[in-house]
Every structure is written in structure tokens, then in C-alpha cells.
């Protein structure tokens, strides 16, 4: 009974890895909502959360990464994100599909990750934009003036996030290879 409660060093490293991912997600969330909540960066409000979710999902694979994407996007939605329920669907499905694509066709490297991050950001923002446009609360011209710059500026965070995720992913590599 007690043997089952024992946590192996490998498991500790897994916990540490996923804790660091979670902290990275929280950091992105805080940066987005607190720091840039009432400030702009290069004229737009950047969107860091999709970047983190996508990077983690791509590095960890469609299953584990997908679960992380599902839980974090749910948390993101419940925290009062402007994107609402759309974020759960988009921030899970697009990274999962991206991860599958990377695994099957593309190499799991920086540039494919950047492309999928851009795709995630673009899809999420476009869906929200279309919904708002459909309900008449958004002018069509803002697609070019707000949406595209937001996607591009948010993607600027991708290299840093990618490197951080790559470093975190390596935690426990020694045990994995054994």
C-alpha cells in the first residue's frame, strides 16, 4: 500500500515539468491580463496564452499536450477571458491538430511551431472577430487594423516561449532514455 504512495524521482521530475508548464501558463496569463491589461505593446494588446498552450502542446505531443491545452484553455475561459467558450475549442483543437501534423509531416522544430502558433492565434482571433462582426459589435475594417497586428505582435513572444518550453521539456530526459 505504502509502496504505491511512493513517488519515484522520475515522477517527481514529471511533476516538476508540468508545474513549470503551469507556472509558465500563469505567467503568460498574468502578463496578458495584468501588465498589458490596460497597456498596449506596439499599439496592440498582445495575446500570450495561445502561444504558451501551442508551444507546450507541440513539444509534448497531441495526447499529453492536448490534455494540457484542454485544461488550461478551460481555466482561461473560466477566468473571464474575452474569448469565452471559443477559446476552449480553438486553443485545444488547433494545437492538437498542429501537433499531429508536426508529428506526421513536419519536424517538431522552431519554424513549424511558429507556423502553428500563428495559425492558432489567427484562428482564435478570427473566430472571435467573426462572431463579433456577425453580432454587429465589430467593424469589418478592424480585421486589418487590429486583428493582424495583434497576431503578429503576439507571435513575437513565440521564440522566448518556445525556448523556455524546450528547456522545461528536457527535465527528466535522462530517465526517459533509460
Amino acid at each position, binding site marked *: 500500500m505504502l509502496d504505491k504512495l511512493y513517488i519515484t524521482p522520475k515522477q517527481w521530475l514529471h511533476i516538476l515539468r508540468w508545474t513549470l508548464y503551469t507556472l509558465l501558463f500563469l505567467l503568460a496569463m*498574468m502578463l496578458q491580463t495584468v501588465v498589458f491589461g490596460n497597456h498596449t505593446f506596439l499599439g496592440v494588446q498582445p495575446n500570450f496564452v495561445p502561444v504558451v498552450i501551442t508551444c507546450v502542446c507541440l513539444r509534448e505531443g*497531441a495526447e499529453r499536450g492536448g490534455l494540457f491545452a*484542454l485544461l488550461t484553455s*478551460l481555466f482561461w475561459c*473560466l477566468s473571464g477571458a474575452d474569448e469565452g467558450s471559443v477559446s*476552449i*475549442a480553438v486553443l485545444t*483543437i488547433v494545437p492538437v491538430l498542429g501537433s499531429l501534423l508536426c*508529428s506526421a509531416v513536419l519536424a517538431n522544430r522552431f519554424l513549424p511551431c511558429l507556423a502553428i502558433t500563428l495559425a492558432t492565434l489567427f484562428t482564435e482571433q478570427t473566430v472571435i472577430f467573426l462572431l463579433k462582426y456577425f453580432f454587429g459589435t465589430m467593424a469589418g475594417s478592424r480585421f486589418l487594423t487590429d486583428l493582424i497586428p495583434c497576431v503578429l505582435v503576439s507571435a513575437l513572444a513565440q521564440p522566448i516561449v518556445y525556448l523556455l518550453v524546450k528547456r522545461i521539456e528536457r527535465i527528466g530526459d535522462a530517465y526517459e532514455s533509460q
Partner: protein
Amino acid sequence: MIGLKKHWSGRAKLIVALALILAAVTAIASGLFGTTWAEKAVQTVLTPIRGGFASITRQIERYYNYVFGYESLEAKNDYLEKRIMEIEDQIRSADALERENAYLRELLNLSRQHDDYKFCDAYIVSWDSSSWKSTFTIGKGTNAGLETGMVAVTQYGQVVGMITEIGANWATVTTVMDTSLEISASLASSGHTGVVQGDYTSGERGKLRMIYLPSEAVLRNNDQVVTTGSTVYPKDLIIGYVIDAGYDETGVAKYALLEPAADFDTLEQIFIITDFVSEQNEANRATDTSEPTDASEPTGN
């Protein structure tokens, strides 16, 4: 595509399906119930974290502004200092105008009481006061119609002194506290006369001495001492108040120590009596007017 199908596992499908279901459920729940308990729970957990993060952000912003906003703050500070100087200058001007207004209002009362007086106002530009001298300079002179021997008073008609030196745009006024100035004066209550001069002998600075008072003169504290009237000093201008009295060295005459009526400590603006009607002046004027008439008579004949 084959590769993609190979990686498209049941778990991945489940995750995608769950994402769609959760998205739908949260959308419906949110639409039906507004803020759900789950949202409340997440917000409750996040609020202290956000609070701490906001606090750190504020500190960093302060530090950033301190480091990078120093130049702009300095420029802003310079601008604000200039503005303060301007505003202070305006306030000073307003204060000066207010004081001048009060002086002129009092002077108006004095003019009503003595409609024969003609005044010229002037500001004190410098003081030249030593232990043995009490004079000051005003910013007006002969250009303003002033002459030596004219009397300076306050807006309340209190004697300040007399112009003793004059230039085109300046004049030196020797105050009543200077020992060189002697003014014929009388006690307002009893009418006893004497001479008032500055007192540097009693050891009390800023006091006047009224001498040559008859021994029968009755002196009381706060008795008013006024000018008796002459060609120089108009009648009944207040010089000071009795604060002490006694017999002089000869023992046959009395003296009185006076507190000057004018407050020299706060004196800024004075009024020079440029003309007034006195018995002697009237007589002089009558003589002056009669002379041309006399002279004109032969011409007229």
C-alpha cells in the same frame, strides 16, 4: 495523410471531443446562468495572484519611470517650477494691489475729512536707518511735483516725516523718529503745546520725545499728540500717544515719551501732502494773488 491517421489516436480524438463539449457546455451555462460557480471559483483563486502580480508590476513601473522617465520628469519639474514662479508673481502683484486698494480707501476717507489736502502717493524703495538716523527713500521726486519740506503721512493721517532731500525721481524722507526733526505739537486732550522730536536718549528705540511742556500740563497715558499746524505741517495730524511723562533736567518743564502713531515696521506706501490750506498759507496766497492784481492795475489803467 497516412502518417496523420496513424497519430490520430483515440485519446487525441477524445481530447478534441471533450474540447468541443466543454466549449458548448460553458457557452450554454454562461448563457443560461450568467457567472457559473466554476468561474467564481477560478476568479477567487486568481484574484490574490493577480493582486500580487499587479503590486509587483506597479513597483516595476515605478522603478522604470524613475530610471527612464527621469528626463521627462526633470523637464516637467522645470516647467512646473516656472509656472509656480509665474503664479507666485501674480499672487504678489495681487497682494500688492490689494494693499494699495486698502491704502487708497483709507486715504479717501482722509481726503473727505480734509478736503483741502492734496496727496501724492509713493512707495518706499529703501530704508537708511541707523542708530542715529531714521530716513527712507521714496520712488518719486520733483517730477511728481514733490518738494523738500513736504510732509509724509500714512493713509490714516499719521505723521511719518518730512522730505529733506529730493531728486527728479526720488526723495529722502526723514522720519519723525529722527532727532533732527522737530515738530510743533499739542496734547489733543488739554491743548498744551510742545515740540516732538526723535528720542535716541531714553534707550528705547522707536520712541518720540515731546519736550518744552509746561509744568502744569496734565499728562495721561494714551493721550493723543497732534500737530499744532504751521506752514509745513497741517493741523491735527496724529504724531503719537503718551506712554510716559516726567520733568526734564531743568525741573521747570515737563516731557512726555510717545509711541509713534505710524507703524514703521509695516510701512510700504506713504502719502505726501503736496498742498493744504492753513491760516498762514491762506495769507501767503492772498498776498500772492493781490500782488499781480496790484501790478495789473496800472496795466489796466
